[in-house]
């Protein structure tokens, strides 16, 4: 009966305007959240071709360095500064070999072989991306495990070998070859066996266990205080703009394009932020339109409402029909916005699939559901408060 009385003055146009505005605002918010949750794993995934949490820093080698002989190394102060940065989680120093390394590979009972000069580097174990079971060295061992960059093998297999019609080499085959390695320096000479135990995507160098290299440097070199030329850092978030700024300010070079996905994610964050902001702005405006319509409706009905109060109707009964209208409208627009989000997602997913091999979830993400529930509840609570405040004023006959 109360509803029958109050519905006479409801303006369909105002409510329609609210519904459209709220639908647009909500759809933008939810779509923004959905796009973010779909793209984020693609850019930050552990399986991504670039493991972007680890970044290798070097210093620029300038022509001046070449002539002055000044080494582009990291000083103690610089390394301490790295440790001080909040966005850097761990710092690992590259240790290089300060002695002569000569490697021989002999085939067919040492009748035929090749020899080369080479070098070793090491980093703390937790910076190495692979962990083969042979990767350890105890003092006195004569066999040294070695990790080489995966790109070396690829270079041989897909470049050199196919050009020369040589056989392709598998990882297993390489691992079965023993290298003869001679270390010399500081007036000492020693022979070891070397075995390639793995291939690293992250580290572009010939790696040996740190424990071995530290011992060997002591043994074959008297130059113990050598500053590292390369540093590997583990960062919390490679899209952190502070990180990019820090690297730029200090003139460091980043190995490869590890910062690029970070940058992509940074831009994703910015654009999602803007999208969410616009969505929230539109939703707030839509809420404003709703509140304004309800206010107008209440004002237009003020005589009827006062009469209802004088008949003895409690505020609750007067608030109810107005809140019902709001509830129905908000529910409808939220459901429609979820549908729009789903359809939008179906439209853009093929575009993402084109550029990544990763499987992107097909359905509406949990975070989208949660956001829609939060917005839904927020609008309802807000409009309930506004309506009941206005009705309370009317029932107190305070015009």
């Amino acid at each position, binding site marked *: *009966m*109360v509803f*029958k*009385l109050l519905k*006479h003055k409801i303006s369909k146009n105002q409510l329609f305007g609210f519904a459209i505005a709220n639908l647009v605002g909500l759809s933008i918010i939810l779509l923004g959240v959905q796009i973010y949750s779909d793209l984020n794993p693609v850019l930050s995934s552990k399986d991504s071709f670039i493991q972007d949490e680890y970044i290798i820093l070097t210093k620029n080698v300038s022509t001046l360095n070449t002539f002055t002989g000044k080494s582009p190394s990291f000083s103690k102060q610089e390394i301490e500064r790295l440790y001080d940065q909040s966005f850097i989680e761990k710092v690992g120093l590259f240790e290089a070999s300060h002695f002569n390394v000569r490697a021989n590979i002999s085939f067919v009972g040492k009748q035929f072989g090749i020899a080369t000069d080479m070098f070793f580097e090491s980093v703390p174990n937790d910076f190495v991306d692979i962990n083969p079971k042979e990767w350890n060295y105890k003092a006195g061992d004569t066999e040294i495990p070695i990790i080489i960059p995966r790109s070396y093998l690829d270079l041989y297999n897909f470049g050199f070998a196919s050009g020369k019609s040589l056989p392709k080499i598998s990882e297993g085959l390489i691992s079965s070859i023993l290298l003869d390695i001679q270390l010399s320096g500081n007036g000492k000479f020693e022979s070891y066996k070397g075995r390639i135990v793995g291939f690293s995507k992250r580290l572009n160098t010939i790696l040996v266990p740190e424990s071995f290299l530290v011992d060997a440097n002591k043994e074959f070199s008297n130059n113990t205080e050598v500053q590292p030329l390369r540093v590997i850092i583990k960062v919390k978030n490679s899209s952190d703009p502070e990180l990019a700024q820090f690297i730029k300010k200090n003139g460091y070079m980043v190995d490869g394009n590890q910062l690029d996905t970070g940058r992509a994610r940074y831009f994703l964050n910015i654009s999602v932020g803007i999208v969410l902001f616009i969505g929230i702005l539109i939703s707030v405006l839509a809420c404003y339109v709703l509140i304004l319509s309800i206010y107008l409706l209440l004002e237009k009905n003020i*005589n*009827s409402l*006062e*009469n*209802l*109060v*004088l*008949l*003895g*109707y*409690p*505020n609750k009964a007067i608030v109810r029909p107005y809140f019902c209208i709001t509830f129905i409208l908000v529910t409808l627009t939220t459901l429609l916005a979820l549908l729009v989000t789903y359809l939008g997602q179906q439209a853009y997913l093929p575009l993402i699939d084109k550029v990544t091999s990763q499987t992107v979830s097909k359905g509406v993400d949990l975070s989208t559901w949660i956001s829609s529930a939060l917005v839904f509840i927020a609008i309802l609570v807000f409009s309930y408060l506004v309506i009941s405040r206005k009705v309370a004023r009317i*029932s*107190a*006959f305070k015009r």
Partner: protein
Amino acid sequence: MEKIILKQALPEVFAKGEWVQSDIWHQELAFSRDSISLIKASSGTGKSSLLSYIFGYRKDYQGMIFFDDTNIRQLDLKRWNSIRQKELSIMFQELRLFEELSAIDNVLIKNKLTHFKSKKKIIELFERLGIAEKLNSPVATLSFGQRQRVAFIRALCQPYQFILLDEPISHLDVANSKVLSDLLFEEASAQGAGIIVTSLGYELELPYSNHYKL
């Protein structure tokens, strides 16, 4: 509620102006449940103001008004709702009907709250007051005299200890006024309720126990 007591009550607008002699304003008096009171007044002496103070939707007065021992300024909204549903009934001078609704719906919207009369009983009241054919007409299409009768029926659709009527028959002929006064007397007596009627001149025929001049 046994008594409505006025203690030195006076509309604020009168407080500044020149003093008008009155049986009600600035007096101590009590309306009791077993009395039928007529308040005669000329226009602008605050007759409707008095009823709006008692019914709690205006508070621009000095002095105090009590329901039994309770100063009505201390009642909260919840209590007022219950008083307006169960203890005090009113027929406004300006009627305060819902023009969008039909005559019967105007009565039912009150009865829905109180469940005091059956629909059959309400239709009988419409018949007695000679407006049965207007039952489903929107109030906007009724004459003021017809609306007065609808508002009167609505005022009967609740339990009450006092019923207040503000110029209830200003637009009614003698025959209809007689029906209305008979009905009012019957209904109020059945509930053992006090009656307070205001009038500009032509008054409702009732066995008044008190006459006041405002």
